[in-house]
């Protein structure tokens, strides 16, 4: 019984949240890695682009709620995503046309493009704050829990409850669908293959008649899809605050680099590596040990390796360790 309780405890506080958080990071990391692999620069505006897409989705959600359009037990935001993607895509194409294109055509070094993306980051962040404000927004509606902790306890008769939030399930399901479609697209379709070819060897791709303008447009559109969906899922699961999204850039970059930057599958796994490390290292294991150890050995402290305030230190440390010892990441990506 104690063993089962301990297991449920870990599932409830570590496994399920980490799986959901990891999915959100994974989507962001694939976004970073695609831009890096195809457009060849580190996009520091990632977090704020995700926040922009989420903001648009929230505005649509509010509009739908005001006219009484909801999805029943599902959050209304899911309905807003396609519209938000369209606007996000236009925003990215406009930014590309007026900002990134100039540097790309002049074959600027990647560092210069990265600096330019910091400029885009500030502008995007400002636009978001002007439109929706800097404060915390919750836009979740619909059924909150799939299984409540109390229900779980009643059914199983255990001391520990397992609560599964509907946003966690939505996050995981949407991620699986999105990532499967993306990998099918990149590996099986001709356009996807030309994108990989362009990322692999730009000169040769151009000589093979691959039109770079088309590749750039498709890349930004995919980026818009990833940014909006990733952002909305994170916002539904937690809450939307521009500053949090900006901060999330660190774990997202860490995930992309751990997986091998330029490699979408690596980025996908990297998301989970970072999420699990963050949560495993900041969880207080006191209750867990109370279940598994005999009473005489019960711990006094919280048995928490790191305070949750330091969760970014985890991704930062992983980032530094990977860059020092295996700069190409788990799967061989391009070396930064």
């Amino acid at each position, binding site marked *: 019984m104690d063993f089962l309780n301990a297991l449920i405890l870990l599932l409830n506080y570590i496994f399920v949240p980490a799986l959901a958080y990891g999915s959100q990071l994974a989507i962001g990391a694939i976004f970073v890695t695609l831009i890096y692999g195809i457009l060849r620069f580190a996009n520091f505006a990632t977090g704020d682009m995700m926040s922009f897409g989420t903001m648009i989705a929230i505005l649509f959600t509010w509009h739908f709620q005001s006219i009484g359009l909801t999805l029943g037990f599902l959050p209304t935001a899911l309905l807003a995503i396609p519209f938000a993607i369209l606007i996000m895509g236009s925003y990215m194409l406009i930014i590309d046309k007026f900002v990134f294109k100039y540097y790309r055509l002049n074959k600027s070094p990647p560092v210069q493009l990265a600096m330019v993306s910091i400029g885009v980051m500030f502008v995007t962040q400002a636009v978001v704050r002007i439109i929706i404000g800097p404060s915390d927004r919750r836009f979740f509606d619909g059924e909150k829990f799939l299984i409540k902790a109390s229900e779980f306890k009643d059914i199983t008769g255990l001391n520990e409850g397992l609560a599964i939030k509907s946003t966690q399930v939505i996050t995981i399901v949407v991620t699986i669908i999105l990532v499967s479609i993306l990998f099918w697209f990149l590996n099986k*379709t*001709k*356009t996807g*293959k*030309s994108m*990989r*070819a362009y990322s*692999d*060897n730009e*000169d*040769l*791709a*151009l*000589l*093979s*008649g*691959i*039109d*770079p303008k088309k590749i750039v447009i*498709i890349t930004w559109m995919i980026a818009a899809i990833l940014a909006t969906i990733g952002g909305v899922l994170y916002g539904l699961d937690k809450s939307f605050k521009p500053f949090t999204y900006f901060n999330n850039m660190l774990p997202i970059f860490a995930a992309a680099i751990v997986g091998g930057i330029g490699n979408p599958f690596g980025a996908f796994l990297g998301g989970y590596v970072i999420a699990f490390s963050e949560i495993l290292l900041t969880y207080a294991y006191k209750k867990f040990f109370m279940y598994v150890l005999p009473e005489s050995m019960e711990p006094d402290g919280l048995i928490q390796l790191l305070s949750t305030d330091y969760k970014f230190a985890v991704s930062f440390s992983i980032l530094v360790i990977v860059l020092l010892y295996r700069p190409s990441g788990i799967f061989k990506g391009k070396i930064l």
Partner: protein
Amino acid sequence: MQDNILEIKNLSKYFGGLAAVSNCSLKVKQGTITGIIGPNGSGKTTLFNLISGNLKSSTGNVLFNNKDITDVPSYELFSKGLLRTFQIAHEFTNLSVLENLMMVPGNQSGEKLMNALLKPGLVAKEESQIKEKAMEVVDFLNLSHLKNELAGNLSGGQKKLLELGRTMMVDAKLVLLDEVGAGVNRTLLKDLGTAIEKLNKEKGYTFCMIEHDMDFIGRLCDPVIVMAEGSVLFEGSVEDAKKDERVIESYLGRGSKLKDD
């Protein structure tokens, strides 16, 4: 009367203060296999990069079929029938040999996402035609045992073959070969030569090739153009080139003689 498929007028390229190609003018006649030789650093590869749109020229013009193609980006030249290979072989490392070849023919229906989703039949048919073509090329180059291998795992010489294979996937008009023979073994080199001749005679490809192997040049090329210090030093038959004093001097240094076998 043969037309000029390629005409270069006073082309120059400066890297900082260094003139890699300076005031270079030359003509390549339709249907020929024109060789370009010259000592290292004489601007041969830079010239190719300028023609194929990989580099922007500083001054001068490039005419292809009497149309100005100076600074036209390379992906547009591809559809006009101007192809090139690289001295250091380029390949899509993460695609298989077959996929590398199948990447080449432009304007496939499968490239349009709508077609891929709505007309899978059309796309599949086209794919299978291209695949058949790619198989022929792979067989021709003796690479069929490696067709599903990632191109990044090929040896240097095999990558060179793949480079030539790419130009065989479409109906090219002019192919620029940058040291296609370097690093390829003797037996295969003979086959390569035969392939080039065959493409030239049967399909009407015009070739312009940079080469250091004088035997290879002698067998295939007429005429040859000798470059030195970024411009044309000599133009004529291989036999004449071997006798020309200026060529001998620039290629092998003063006082030495080029072997005549």
